């Protein structure tokens, strides 16, 4: 699974996710990536979110929308909201990670797996790549 969240010069957020699904997948199973609110969500009032992980748990927890709702209704930062929703997934026995970006350019990249491929770029073009 791959994903991206972006903030443009007009202050608009966008999120996208694309996946090949799950090895050895059967019966037409679909994960969270194409499900708006589960693996992909964007709202200028809160954040843009893209998830990757055990899809069934991201769907049941409506992870991407939940992060946005924690920010909108409880005033959490994108970082705290991201930590909370990944913790909820872990508490149910699932695992994975997400990337999120808010309208002020704050980023969050929480995950509870052994690793996650992540990358960021700032307004002035500074790039950071993280794998573990």
């Amino acid at each position: 699974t791959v994903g991206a969240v972006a903030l443009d010069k007009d202050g608009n957020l966008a999120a996208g996710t694309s996946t090949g699904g799950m090895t050895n997948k059967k019966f037409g199973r679909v994960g969270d990536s194409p499900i708006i609110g589960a693996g992909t969500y964007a709202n200028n009032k809160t954040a843009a979110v893209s998830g990757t992980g055990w899809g069934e748990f991201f769907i049941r927890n409506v992870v991407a929308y939940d992060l946005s709702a924690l920010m909108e209704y409880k005033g959490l930062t994108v970082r705290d909201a991201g930590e909370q929703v990944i913790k909820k997934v872990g508490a149910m026995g699932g695992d994975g990670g997400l990337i999120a970006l808010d309208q002020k350019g704050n980023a969050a990249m929480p995950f509870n797996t052994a690793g996650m491929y992540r990358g960021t770029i700032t307004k002035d073009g500074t790039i950071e790549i993280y794998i573990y």
Partner: protein
Amino acid sequence: GQYVMVIHGGAGTILRSSMTPEKEKAYRTALEAALKAGYQKINAGSSSLDAVQAAITMLEDNPLFNAGKGAVFTHDGKNELDAAIMDGKSLKAGAVAGVTVIKNPIMAARAVMERSEHVMLIGKGAEQFAKECGLTIVDPKYFYTEDRWKGLQKAIEEEAEKNKRGNGYNPPGTGYPDYKFG
């Protein structure tokens, strides 16, 4: 508060022991290239949607990642791809699921968002829509990669092993191997 783009290439068991310096370099180079593709769009005054699509298209075209060209295989030896995109300003969204011949599913998701009144299209219908929108349609063989094919064989062997031990199904939280992340 200075980020303009964040990307990911998937999560899962990324063992340092299995990550050779060459492989790590290849991942880093691919992630950097995707960030630069998105950044160029933002710098040129394009929309965050264009930046997201540019970055993800690059990752879909790179066999290192479980999306597009590098997609993993289903039990039937097929590649079933899914994608979604969402605009934070209008709250419009588009998604495709279970597609097998669309070269860049993220572009199909964007077409659903901007050129249909729907949010999600699946399977053959989604493929027909993508074709009518002029997106690149490929032979399913385009998605074949040796690595992923071997991954499928390994997963099928593991599953047969588990079935032999009588616990083919892994209820959540029972250490289900996360080979599925690709």
